[in-house]
C-alpha cells in the first residue's frame, strides 16, 4: 500500500492540492475534447438542415441494432471502470485490475461491432464524398452523411483505442498495487476520460442512427 508522501511531487505542498490540480487539468482536457467534437457536430447540424431527406434516408442505411448494441456495451464499460475505481479506493487492486480488463474487453467488443458495420458500409458503397457508390440512394447529401458518419465515428474510434491503451496501463498499475485508498488519482482520471468516450458515443448514436 502506498503512503501519501511518496506520491506528492516536489512542487506540490500536499497530496490534496496535487489531486485537485490533476482533476482540474483533466476537466480542462475533457473540455478541449468536447470542443474538438463540437466542430464536427456543427458541420452535422448545418448539413442536416441543408439535406434533411438525404440524411434521413442515409441514416436508414445504417443498422440501428448494431448501434444500440454498442451503446449498451459502452455504458456497461463505464460501469466497470467506475467499479474499478471503487475497488481501488478500498485497496482491492487485483479486483480493480480485473474490472479494468473487463472494460478493455468491452471496448474490444465495441470495436469489433464497429468493424462489422464499417465492412458492411464499405462493401455496399456507403462511402464518404467522392467514393460514394450506392445507386439506390443517389441524392445530394447522402455522401455528406457518410462523410460525417465516418469522420465522427472514426475520430471516436481513435479515442476508444487510446482509451484502451490508458486502461491497460492503469490495469497493470492496479495489479501491482500502485494505487490505494489515499492515492487512486490516475485511475480516477482514466475513468473520467473513459466516461467522456462513452458520453461522446451517447451523442453520436442518436444523431447518426436514430433521427
Amino acid at each position, binding site marked *: 500500500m502506498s503512503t501519501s508522501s511518496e506520491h506528492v511531487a516536489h512542487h506540490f505542498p500536499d497530496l490534496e492540492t496535487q489531486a485537485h*490540480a490533476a482533476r482540474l487539468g483533466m476537466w480542462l482536457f475533457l473540455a478541449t475534447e468536447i470542443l474538438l467534437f463540437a466542430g464536427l457536430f*456543427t*458541420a452535422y447540424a448545418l448539413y442536416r438542415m441543408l439535406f434533411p431527406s438525404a440524411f434521413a434516408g442515409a441514416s436508414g442505411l445504417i443498422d440501428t441494432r448494431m448501434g444500440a448494441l454498442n451503446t449498451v456495451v459502452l455504458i456497461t464499460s463505464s460501469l466497470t471502470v467506475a467499479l474499478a475505481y471503487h475497488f481501488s479506493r478500498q485497496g482491492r487492486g487485483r479486483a480493480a485490475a480485473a474490472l479494468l480488463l473487463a472494460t478493455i474487453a468491452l471496448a474490444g467488443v465495441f470495436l469489433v461491432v464497429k468493424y462489422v458495420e464499417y465492412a458492411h458500409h464499405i462493401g455496399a458503397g456507403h462511402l464518404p*464524398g467522392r467514393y460514394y457508390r450506392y445507386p439506390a440512394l443517389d441524392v445530394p447529401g447522402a*455522401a*455528406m452523411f457518410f*462523410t*460525417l458518419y465516418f469522420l465522427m465515428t472514426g475520430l471516436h474510434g481513435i479515442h476508444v483505442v487510446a482509451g484502451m491503451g490508458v486502461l491497460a496501463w492503469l490495469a497493470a498499475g492496479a495489479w501491482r498495487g500502485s494505487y490505494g485508498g489515499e492515492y487512486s488519482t490516475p485511475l480516477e482520471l482514466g475513468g473520467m476520460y473513459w466516461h467522456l468516450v462513452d458520453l461522446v458515443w451517447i451523442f453520436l448514436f442518436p444523431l447518426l442512427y436514430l433521427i
Partner: protein
Amino acid sequence: MAPRGGAWSWLTTRDHKRIGIMYLVLTSAMLALGGFYAMAIRMELLTPGPTVMEAQTYNRMFTLHGVIMILLFMIPAIPGIFTNFFLPLMIGARDVAFPRLNLFSVYLYLAGALIAVYGMIQGGADTGWTFYTPYSTTTVTKVWPILLGGFTLGMASIVTGLNFIVTVHTLRAPGLTWMRLPLFVWSSYATSVIQVLATPVLGITLLLVAVENVFGFGVFDPARGGDPVLFQHLFWFYSHPAVYIMVLPAMGVVSEVLQAFARRNVFGYKAVAFSSLGIAFVGFFTWGHHLFTSGQSAVDAGIFGVLTMFVGVFTAIKVFNWTATLYRGSISFQTPFAYAIAFIFFVVFGGMTGVALATVALDVHWQDTYFVVAHFHFIMVGGTLTGFLAALHYWWPKMTGRMYSEKWGLVAAVFIFLGFNFTFVPQYLLGNAGMPRRYYSYPERFWALNVASSAGASVLAMGFVIVLAYLLLSLKYGPRAAANPWGSRGYEWMTPTPPPPENFLGQPTYPRPAHDYREAHPGQEGH
C-alpha cells in the same frame, strides 16, 4: 541561469525556467525565418510587375510568412518563454503544475515545427495562412503537412494553456490571493483560457481541410454539397480569439514594465485585470466580423460589429489606466520602457483602426485590402512583437544573469519604432487606395507607397539585427546582473539571479501588493 549538466539534462529538463529558455531559442529561430519571408515579400513588391520571384513562389512566401509568424512565433512566444519562466516566480510556486506536460509541449512544438518545415521543403502551401476552402482543398501544392503541423502546434498550445490555468488555481503561495496576482499573471490566465477553449475547434477544422485535400470527402466542397463558408465560421471561431492569445500576454508585459519603470503601482488594478478576462470572453463572439462581405445577413453583421466594439472598449480601459499609471511616477526611460510606450501608441492606433473596421460600412471597402494588413500588423508587430521585446529586455537580466548594452538597446528601439511606422503606415494608405492583399503584381499607381513600405521594412529589419547582436554579445561580455537591476518591486524579482532550481530560498511571503513603491524600503533597490 547557471549552467548545470549537459545537453541531455536540458532535453529532459522539467524545470519551467529551462523550458522557457528552450522556447526562447526555438521561437526566435522561427521569428528570424518568418522575418526572412517578410523581407522576400517586400522585395518582390518593390516594383509593380515581377521583381525577383514568380507568382507561385510569392504565394508560398506569404503563406509561410503567415503560418510561421502566427503559429510558430506569435502564439507560443510570450506564453512559452515568459509565462513559463515568470508565472511560477510571480506566484511563489516551485514549478508549474504539470512539469512533464510542460516539457511535452516543447516537443509537440518542435514536432509541429518540423512537420511544417517538411511541408516547406516539399514546396510549401500557396493558400494563405487562412486556408480558405475550396481553394485549400483543390490546390495542387502540398497543404497537408502545414495543416498537420498547425494541428500539432495547436496541441502544444492547449497543453501550455491548461498547465498555466491549473498552476494559477492550485500553486499560488500562501497569502497570495487572486486580487494580489501580478497583472501579467492575469493576462496570462486570460490567454490560457482562450488557448484551451478555442484551439480544439481550429484543430478539427485543419484536420477536416487536410482530409478533404487528400481524400476528397467534400465537407467544404460546394460541388459535393459542402459549404465553404462553414469553414470560415469554424476557422475564425478560433482565429479571431487567437489574436487575443497573441496580444493579451503582451498587454500583461506592458502592465509590468510600466509599473517597474514608473515606480508606481498600476492605476486601476481591477480594471486592467478584469479587462483581460473581458477581452478573452468577448473575443469568442466577434468572429463574424471577418465575414462582412461574404453575404452574411445585415443583422448578423450588426451584432458582430457591436460586439467587436467591446473589445475596443476593454482595450481603451487598459490604455487609459496605463497612461494614468505614469502620472506622478518616477520614470526611468530605459529600453523596456521605450518598447512599452511604443506598444501603447501602436495599440491605440491599430486598435482604433480595428474598431473602424467594425463599423461595417467601412469594412466593405477595406476588407481584404492592405488596410487590414496594416491594421493587424499594428496589433501583431506593433503590439505583440513590441511587447515581446519589452519583456525580453525587462527580464533578460533575470533569465541570463547578464546586462545588455543600454545605449544600443535604445538605438535599436528607435530603428524599430521608425522602421515600423514607415513599413505599415503606407500600407494603410495602400488599403485606402484599394490595393487588395496577397497581390503579386499591382497597378503602377500603388508603386510609390509600396517602395516606401519596403524601405521601412529594411529599417525595421536592421533594428532586429542590432537587437540580436547586442543580446548575443551580452551573454559573453555583458556585466553580471544584480538580482534586481531595475529596482522593480514585481514579485518575480524577489528571488536571486540566477533563480535556484526550486525558484526560492525558503518560502516567499507577500506582505505587500506587487509594485508597491509608496516608501523607499531597503533591500529591493538592487545595485
